[in-house]
C-alpha cells in the first residue's frame, strides 16, 4: 500500500481517563504490558505497507513524542516518507487549538498536500485492534467507495457503552445510511472505529470546504452531511476491538488480554506490534513466586503471588505480596506483604510493606503516577 498515507489524530479531548490522562494523551496510555495505545494503530499501518504516517498531536503530547522518537522502532526513519509528528502551532489563521479533527487536518494541509500518495487512511487513537488495512483498501477500491468507514459490530455491548460511541447503520450493499454520534438511545450496534479510507484529493477538498464554513467535526460535518452525496460504505472488522474511553473500559480491556483468543487476535493474526525498546532484562521469578493467568513484561522481578494481572516493564513484586485482578504500570514497586485487588497503579508508584488496596471490578482504585503509599 505504497499509494496510501496514514494520519493518526491523537487530540480527542472529549475523553477523560481522570488520573491516567492528566499528563498524557490517550494515544500515549500504556496498554497490554509493554505498549502504548498508539502502537497498535501505528503497527497496523506499518503491517499494511503504509510508510508515510503523520501523527497530529494536541494535548500533553510530550510523552507521545518521547515514545515515538524518530520512528525507528516502527521502521519509519525513512528518507522518503516516514514518521511526521505534527504538533499544533500558531499562525495568522491558526490558533494552535483545534476545534475538531477537521480543524487539525486543515492546519496540517501543507503536509497532506505535499505527500505523494493517492489514498489516506485516517485513524483516531482510542481504539485498539489488530488489523491490516489491506482488505479494507481492496473493499474500498472494488466497491468504488468515496469514503470507507471501518466498524465493528459489537453485539455484547451494553446500551451505555454504545451510547458513548459513533454508531452507523448500513444497508445490504454496505452503504451507510445513518450515523449517530453518541446517541442517548442507540439504534445500532455497529460501532465506528474512527478509521477511514478516502481518496486524498477528495479528502483535501472536503476538509477545505468544511473549514471554509467553520465546521470542524469529521463525523458530523463530513460524514453525516454527505451521506446522500457521497458513496460512504462500512467495512466490518471481525476481530477483537478494545475501545478505550473510560477508566472502566481501560481496566476491562487490559484484563481482556488474558484471554488467549483476544491475545492472538491482537498480537499474531495481522503481524507484529512494534513499540519503543527499553532493553530491559528478562523477567525473573523467585523461589517463592507464583503466577497464574497473567501477562508479564521484561524487567519484572516477582517474588510474590500474581493472579489475573497485567504487569508492565520493570515491576517489582515483593515476598508474600498478593496481587489479583490488577494492572501495574512500568517500574512500580510492590513491597512485601502488600495486597492489591482490582487496582490500577500508574507508573513509578511505590506501595509500602503490608499495605492493602481493594477496588471493585466496576470501579478499580487508580493510583496516580509517582505516588508513594
Amino acid at each position, binding site marked *: 500500500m505504497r499509494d496510501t498515507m496514514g494520519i493518526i489524530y491523537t487530540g480527542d479531548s472529549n475523553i477523560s481517563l481522570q488520573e491516567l490522562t492528566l499528563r498524557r494523551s490517550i494515544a500515549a496510555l500504556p496498554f497490554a504490558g509493554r505498549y502504548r495505545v498508539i502502537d497498535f494503530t501505528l503497527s497496523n499501518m506499518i503491517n499494511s505497507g503504509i510508510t508515510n504516517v503523520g501523527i497530529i498531536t494536541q494535548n500533553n503530547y510530550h510523552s507521545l513524542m518521547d515514545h515515538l522518537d524518530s520512528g525507528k522502532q516502527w521502521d519509519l526513519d525513512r528518507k522518503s516518507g516516514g514518521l511526521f509528528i505534527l504538533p499544533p502551532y500558531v499562525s495568522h489563521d491558526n490558533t494552535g487549538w483545534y476545534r475538531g479533527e477537521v480543524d487539525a487536518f486543515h492546519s496540517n494541509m501543507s503536509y497532506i498536500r505535499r505527500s505523494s500518495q493517492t489514498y489516506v487512511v485516517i485513524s483516531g487513537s482510542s481504539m485498539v485492534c489488530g488489523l491490516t488495512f489491506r482488505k479494507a483498501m481492496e473493499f474500498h477500491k472494488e466497491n468504488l467507495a468515496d469514503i470507507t468507514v471501518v466498524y465493528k459490530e459489537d453485539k455484547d455491548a451494553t446500551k451505555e457503552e454504545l451510547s458513548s460511541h459513533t454508531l452507523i447503520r448500513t444497508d445490504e450493499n454496505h452503504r451507510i445510511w445513518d450515523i449517530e454520534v453518541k446517541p442517548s438511545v442507540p439504534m445500532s450496534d455497529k460501532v465506528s472505529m474512527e478509521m477511514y479510507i478516502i481518496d486524498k484529493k477528495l479528502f483535501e477538498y472536503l476538509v477545505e470546504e468544511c473549514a471554509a464554513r467553520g465546521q470542524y467535526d469529521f463525523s458530523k460535518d463530513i460524514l453525516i452531511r454527505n451521506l446522500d452525496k457521497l458513496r460512504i460504505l462500512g467495512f466490518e472488522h471481525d476481530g477483537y476491538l478494545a475501545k478505550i474511553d473510560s477508566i472502566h473500559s481501560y481496566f476491562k480491556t487490559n484484563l481482556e488480554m488474558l484471554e488467549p483468543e483476544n491475545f492472538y487476535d491482537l498480537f499474531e493474526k495481522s503481524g507484529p506490534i512494534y513499540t519503543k525498546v527499553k532493553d530491559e532484562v*528478562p*523477567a525473573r521469578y523467585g523461589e517463592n513466586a507464583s503466577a497464574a493467568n497473567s501477562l508479564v513484561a521484561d524487567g519484572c522481578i516477582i517474588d510474590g503471588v500474581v493472579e489475573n494481572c497485567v504487569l508492565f516493564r520493570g515491576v517489582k513484586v515483593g515476598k508474600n505480596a498478593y496481587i489479583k485482578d490488577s494492572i501495574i504500570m512500568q517500574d512500580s514497586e510492590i513491597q512485601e506483604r502488600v495486597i492489591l485487588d482490582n487496582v490500577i497503579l500508574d507508573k513509578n508508584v511505590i506501595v509500602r510493606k503490608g499495605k492493602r488496596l481493594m477496588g471493585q471490578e466496576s470501579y478499580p482504585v487508580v493510583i496516580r503516577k509517582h505516588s508513594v503509599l
Partner: protein
Amino acid sequence: MVAKKCVAMLLAGGQGSRLGVLTKNTAKPAVPFGGKYRIIDFPLSNCTNSGIDTIGVLTQYKPLKLNSYIGIGQPWDLDRLNGGVTILPPYMKQTAGEWYSGTANAICQNIEFIEAYNPEYVLILSGDQIYKMDYSAMLAFHEEKKADVTIAILEVPWEDASRFGIMNTDEENKVYEFVEKPKNPISNKASMGIYIFNWKKLRQYLMEDQRTPSSSNDFGKDIIPKMLQDGEQMYAFPFKGYWRDVGTIQSLWEANMDLLEESSELDLYDPAWRIYSRNPVEPPHFIARGANVKSCIITEGGMIYGDVNHSVLFAGVTVGKGSRVRNSILMPNVKIGENTIIENAIIAENTVIGDNCYIGYSTSTQEKPSMDGNDITVIGENLTLPSGYKLDKGIMVDSENFLSFQAVI
C-alpha cells in the same frame, strides 16, 4: 576520517567446537545467553558504555547469524556517522587470499581498517565471555602506567590457576613473566584475553610476527611472549567482578544458571550499565492458569502452561500443559508440547518437542544436582522431535543423528 583515540577489535571468528551442536551453524559469539542476549552483546555493550564507538568485528566461521544480528549496530547505539561497528571477514588480495590463521593474523590482515582511524590505542576483545567491564578505566590505567601493552587479569581460585595463562607481576602490577597453564603457579592472576596495545608498537610486532614462519600468529602464544622477551612495558590490569568464559557446554549452562540466583554476581539491572541486545518484537509473556513458575527467567513472547523451575527461557518459548522443565535452557522459539519432561538440558533455537517426551530425564529428585558437562543433554536447532521421544541424560543430538539416539526407557 576523524581520528579515534582507541579502536576495539573483537575476535569473533572462532568455531567454538566445544559447544558442539550449538555452534554447528552459528559462530560462538552469536550463541544465545541469559534469556534475551547473545554472547556478543556483552563486549559490544561494554564498548558502548565505556565510550568506545569504533569496533571491528572479525568474523570467519559461519557468520550469517552473527552478521545479521549485528546489522548496522543500532541496538548498541553503534550506528555512527564516524566509526560504529564494522564487520571484517577475511578477503582476497591481489595475488591470493587467506583465512585468518590466528588471532594476531586476523588483526594483521585488517591493519588498513585500524589505520583509517589513526588510533593511539587498540583494544583486543574476544567474543566468548560474559562480563561487565569498563574499558575506559583500563585505558586510563594503561596511560597512567605508560605501558606498551596492558592485559586484563582476574584473580582466580588457586586450584584453578593451572588452567589459565598466568601473569606473574611485581607489586606495581608490572608483568615480568607469563606462563601458559603452569603446573605449579606462583600467582593466581589469570589473563582474560583482553588487551590494550599502543597501536604503533602492536603494528610493529604484527609485521614482525607475519615474517616469522614458525609463529602461530596468536596473541597469547606469540605476540605477548615476544613483547615480554623484548622488555616492553607490560602491565596487568586487575579486574574485579563476574567473568565467565562460556566456551564449553558446562560453563555456558552454569553461567545461565548463575542468573537465577537472587543476588546474582552479574547485575544486569544497573541502568548505568545496560546490556543491550536486538530486542525481539513480541508481546509480554503469558503465564496461564495452572502453570507454575519458580526460580526462573522468562522473556517476551513466552507462553507458559506447565511447570518451569530453575530454568532460563528465551523469547517466544512455549511450554505446554502438564510439561515440566527443570534446570534447563530453552533458546528462542523452542516449543514444548504437553506432558513432556525436560531436565538438565540445553535446547537450541526453533526446536519443537512433541507431547509425552522425556529429555535428560533422571530419576533422582535432587533439587539442584551437581552437574558435570557430561550430564547435560543438548539438542540442536531447528529439530522436530516427535511425541514420545526419549533422550537419556548427557547426550548431544542434531538434525543428522537425533533419531538414532532415541532411548528406550
